[in-house]
């Protein structure tokens, strides 16, 4: 092998060809009959795998080599297979008996090698077949084997959760094993299991408590304390009981790792005195010159902040210092903490620091993060902390002008949000936006900088929507119809066009009739012409519509008819912001039953040809529908519901109001409800503006008065249908759900039999079907026990 390695290192430029040569040689060696040569070849494959070459084609040979009786070769085979086997390796099944033989071998290192590699590629089949052998090993006389087999059991349980009860029953005896290594391994496994399903392991708390008080092995203590950390939130009495010993440990221990874990668990326990002691210690950590300790201190403080945001307010100084640390990890942690430390007064200071940071920061991702943080902090809970919106808007504009900013969309959204919801500040915002629009330099660089162009989107929209505040509409209009705009992305151009019409309408309003209207209209027509030839469909469409409109206006003006008012009406009305979940919360009007057919189901009058094609696409519901009537439907519905309730595997979605399908609501509602009129307006509104996701509702605006020194700003609340409350999303994503078994009931015989039964079953049945069978059996036995 060393020759090959030397060769590879020597051939730096043509490594690929040299390796190909080596692979050919290895393949040749693997065909030779001598196990010695094969083992050598497999060893070479190990090195090649490290370099990134795929070696799974030699899987069978690896098993062959591992089945040798000589430890040297066995070891090599197992090692290389642990690097490369996975769930889809088909030859794993051949290995089962070989592994079983090795597990029961009298030489502990044979078994040890098998266990080590098994832990890397445990599959459900292997788990099921070998669980009994491994269980017998955990009561071996040699602590080495006990230790290894205990750890492998965790992997077994992950892939074969049905074995949890019998395995755990044997496992928990080893928590008090005489050998410290085995003890540690058992604690390790239990703490891993408990992390994911803590309430099932609460009954072990007293045992662990005893262990904690008597043990001196730091690793084990750390694991036990971490275990308590996950148990404590469920059982407040446990927190109280742990308080004393943990605080003692805190004060007496010399190992910082242990100290840190104690702090974490006391934080999880959430007691007053505990918290104050922890905060004291954490301050010590954060001021420590060792960077690692500072990082850990910040990490722990962020956990405290989740429950007690005000307790850490006086740490602001330290956190601000950490922000300037040259260590990126520490800066990130400090950023996270800032969130909780802002208040009305400190917000401006913090944001100023963050902005100056951004200017000096290297790396666009860090800048992007800082930007996101600034925006998040400011917009938190409806701009609770922003006292001076003018300042906020200027901050946003400043951020746009910065180099390397990629979050233009977020900035754009913020600008629009503020402009819409904070009515008092609209004037200022519009002025700012006008200056952004008229800034020629910005326009020319905008084509390259994607982020910036999104802000122009917002600027144009704001300028158009709140056109009454524009200081000099003529120049804004000229800027918006400038030929440089043609260089911007399509959707931005269309916004420009649309809003230029709005400004046009305002200008019409202000000018005296017959004064400059024709010239105004003429300039508009001239500037619109290049847009009408644009490649972008939307731009072209809007430009053409605009041109037609203008032609019409011109015709009417020439005839002497005053059309100003009509034009103004086109762009009238204001849009209010709507909460994102508002659609779902629309209550279903009484008298609407969504389960009843709205129209008669279509009679099936298809000829065979079409039926055949429909069949191909799996639609044979047409025939079924013919036969069903109301009673049938009701019966089927009831049946389905009862099935769902009985099926333990069916995941019920959170109950939503029935109005979650927009099409049906639109169709089924009585015509005099506000929603229908709103939807009619919606159709006209779409011509005017794109409003992704938000629909128009004529409901009352809810104003939240932000009481502030000086400026009195009303922030308009997001609209919801009357009476609806906002809900949080709850997402459950628990890969350890199957291991969520109540271990209190001690029925080892029944379960042990089940394990045996399933082992014999596996030999006769095909792999896939049986897991479900075992599931069903276990469900049955559980029901019997109940």
């Amino acid at each position, binding site marked *: 092998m*060393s020759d090959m*390695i030397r060769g590879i*290192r020597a051939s730096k430029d043509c490594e690929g060809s040299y390796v190909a040569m080596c692979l050919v040689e290895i393949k040749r060696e693997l065909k030779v009959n001598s196990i010695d040569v094969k083992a050598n070849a497999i*060893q070479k494959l*190990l*090195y090649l*795998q*490290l370099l*990134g*070459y*795929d070696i799974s084609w030699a899987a069978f040979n690896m098993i062959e080599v591992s089945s040798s009786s*000589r*430890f*040297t070769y066995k*070891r*090599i085979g197992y*090692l290389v297979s642990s*690097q490369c086997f*996975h*769930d889809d390796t088909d030859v794993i099944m051949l290995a089962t008996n070989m592994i079983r033989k090795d597990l029961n071998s009298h*030489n502990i*290192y044979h078994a040890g*090698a098998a*266990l*080590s590699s098994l*832990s*890397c*590629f*445990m599959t459900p089949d292997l788990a099921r077949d070998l669980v009994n052998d491994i269980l017998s090993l955990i009561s071996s006389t040699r602590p*080495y084997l006990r*230790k*290894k087999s205990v*750890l*492998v059991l*965790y992997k077994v349980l992950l892939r074969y959760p049905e074995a949890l009860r019998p395995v755990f029953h044997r496992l928990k005896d080893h928590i008090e094993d005489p050998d410290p*290594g085995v003890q540690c*391994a058992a604690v*390790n*496994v239990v*703490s*891993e299991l408990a*992390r994911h399903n803590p309430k099932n392991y609460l009954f072990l708390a007293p045992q662990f408590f005893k262990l904690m008080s008597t043990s001196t092995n*730091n*690793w084990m203590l*750390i694991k036990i304390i*971490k275990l308590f950390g996950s148990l404590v939130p469920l059982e407040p009495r446990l927190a109280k009981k742990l308080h004393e010993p943990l605080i003692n440990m805190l004060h007496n221990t010399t190992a*910082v*790792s242990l100290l*840190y*874990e104690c702090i974490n668990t006391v934080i999880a326990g959430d007691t007053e005195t505990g918290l104050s002691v922890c905060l004291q210690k954490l301050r010590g950590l954060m001021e420590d010159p060792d*960077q*690692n300790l500072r*990082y*850990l201190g910040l990490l722990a403080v962020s956990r405290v902040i989740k429950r007690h945001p005000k307790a850490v307010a006086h740490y602001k100084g330290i956190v601000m210092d950490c922000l300037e640390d*040259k*260590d*990126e*990890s*520490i800066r*990130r942690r400090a950023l996270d903490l800032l969130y909780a430390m802002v208040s009305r007064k400190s917000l401006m200071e913090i944001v100023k620091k963050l902005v100056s940071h951004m200017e000096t920061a290297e790396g666009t991702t860090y800048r992007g993060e800082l930007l996101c943080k600034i925006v998040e902090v400011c917009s938190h809970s409806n701009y609770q902390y922003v006292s001076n919106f003018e300042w906020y808007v200027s901050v946003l504009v400043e951020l746009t002008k910065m180099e390397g900013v990629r979050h233009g969309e977020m900035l754009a959204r913020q600008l629009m949000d503020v402009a819409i919801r904070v009515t008092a500040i609209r004037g200022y915002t519009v002025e700012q936006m006008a200056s952004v629009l008229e800034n020629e330099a910005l326009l020319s660089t905008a084509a390259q900088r994607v982020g910036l162009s999104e802000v122009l989107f917002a600027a144009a929209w704001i300028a158009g929507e709140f056109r009454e505040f524009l200081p000099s509409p003529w120049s804004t209009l000229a800027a918006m119809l400038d030929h440089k705009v043609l260089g911007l992305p399509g959707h931005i151009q269309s916004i420009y066009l649309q809003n230029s019409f709005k400004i046009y309408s305002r200008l019409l309003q202000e000018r005296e009739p017959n004064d400059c209207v024709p010239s105004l209209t003429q300039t508009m027509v001239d500037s619109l012409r290049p847009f009408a030839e644009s490649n972008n469909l939307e731009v072209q469409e809007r430009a053409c519509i605009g041109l037609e409109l203008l032609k019409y206006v011109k015709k009417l003006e020439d005839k002497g008819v005053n059309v100003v008012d009509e034009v103004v009406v086109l762009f009238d009305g204001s849009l209010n912001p709507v909460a994102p979940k508002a659609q779902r919360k629309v209550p279903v009007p009484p008298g609407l039953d969504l389960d009843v057919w709205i129209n008669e189901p279509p009679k099936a009058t298809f000829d065979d040809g079409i039926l055949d094609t429909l069949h191909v696409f799996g639609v044979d519901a047409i025939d079924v529908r013919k036969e069903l009537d109301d009673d049938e439907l009701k019966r089927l519905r009831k049946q389905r519901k009862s099935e769902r309730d009985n099926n333990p595997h069916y995941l019920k979605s959170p109950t939503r109001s029935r109005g979650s399908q927009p099409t049906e609501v639109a169709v089924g509602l009585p015509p005099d409800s506000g929603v229908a009129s709103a939807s009619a307006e919606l159709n006209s509104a779409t011509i005017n503006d794109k409003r992704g996701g938000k629909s128009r509702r004529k409901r009352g605006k809810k104003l939240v008065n932000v009481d502030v020194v000086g400026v009195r700003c009303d922030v308009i609340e997001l609209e919801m249908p009357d009476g609806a409350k906002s809900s949080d999303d709850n997402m459950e994503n628990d890969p350890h759900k199957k291991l969520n078994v109540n271990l209190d009931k001690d029925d080892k015989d029944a379960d042990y039999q089940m394990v045996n039964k399933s082992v014999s079953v596996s030999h006769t049945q095909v792999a896939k079907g049986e897991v479900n069978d075992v599931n069903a059996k276990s469900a049955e036995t559980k029901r019997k026990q109940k």
Partner: protein
Amino acid sequence: MIKAILVFNNHGKPRLSKFYQHFTEDVQQQIIRETFQLVSKREDNVCNFLEGGSLIAGEDYKLIYRHYATLYFVFCVDSSESELGILDLIQVLVETLDKCFENVCELDLIFHVDRVHYILQEIVMGGMVLETNMADIIAHVQAQDKLEKNEAGLSAAPARAVSAIKSVNLPSLPAGINLPNLPSFK
């Protein structure tokens, strides 16, 4: 749980890679490259914990690394492991390597990848820490080595002889040997 253990040098070439979760080889190499990029940018007196990377984006995994001379030892762990404990573990691993190889250097890792794996197998198994006591670890490693040597026994003697000679440093013969005038027999 430990998700992966990586050792690579200052140029990013992998010297040891152990993944406790299955990835295909090209994904593995990509992870190694990314980790190298993240870790090599760090200066020497910053903290040894890193977050962020494709392996660990979004989940609660951290990178804990240590830099020894020309090698980076990186452990990718989740929140069930104590960070400072893992730092100690890296130290234990390196010291064990030192004991077993006698003043270990990068070349030892290159030419004896399998031995390094065997040592690692005594410390971490399946992503969980098996043993932290250096004496125990070394005892087991040496016992297994002895077992190998005994097995090799007579049949490996020629092979061992060959490898022994290869590593012998023969002093180079001086260029021109001037023999003294030897008395000649008459």
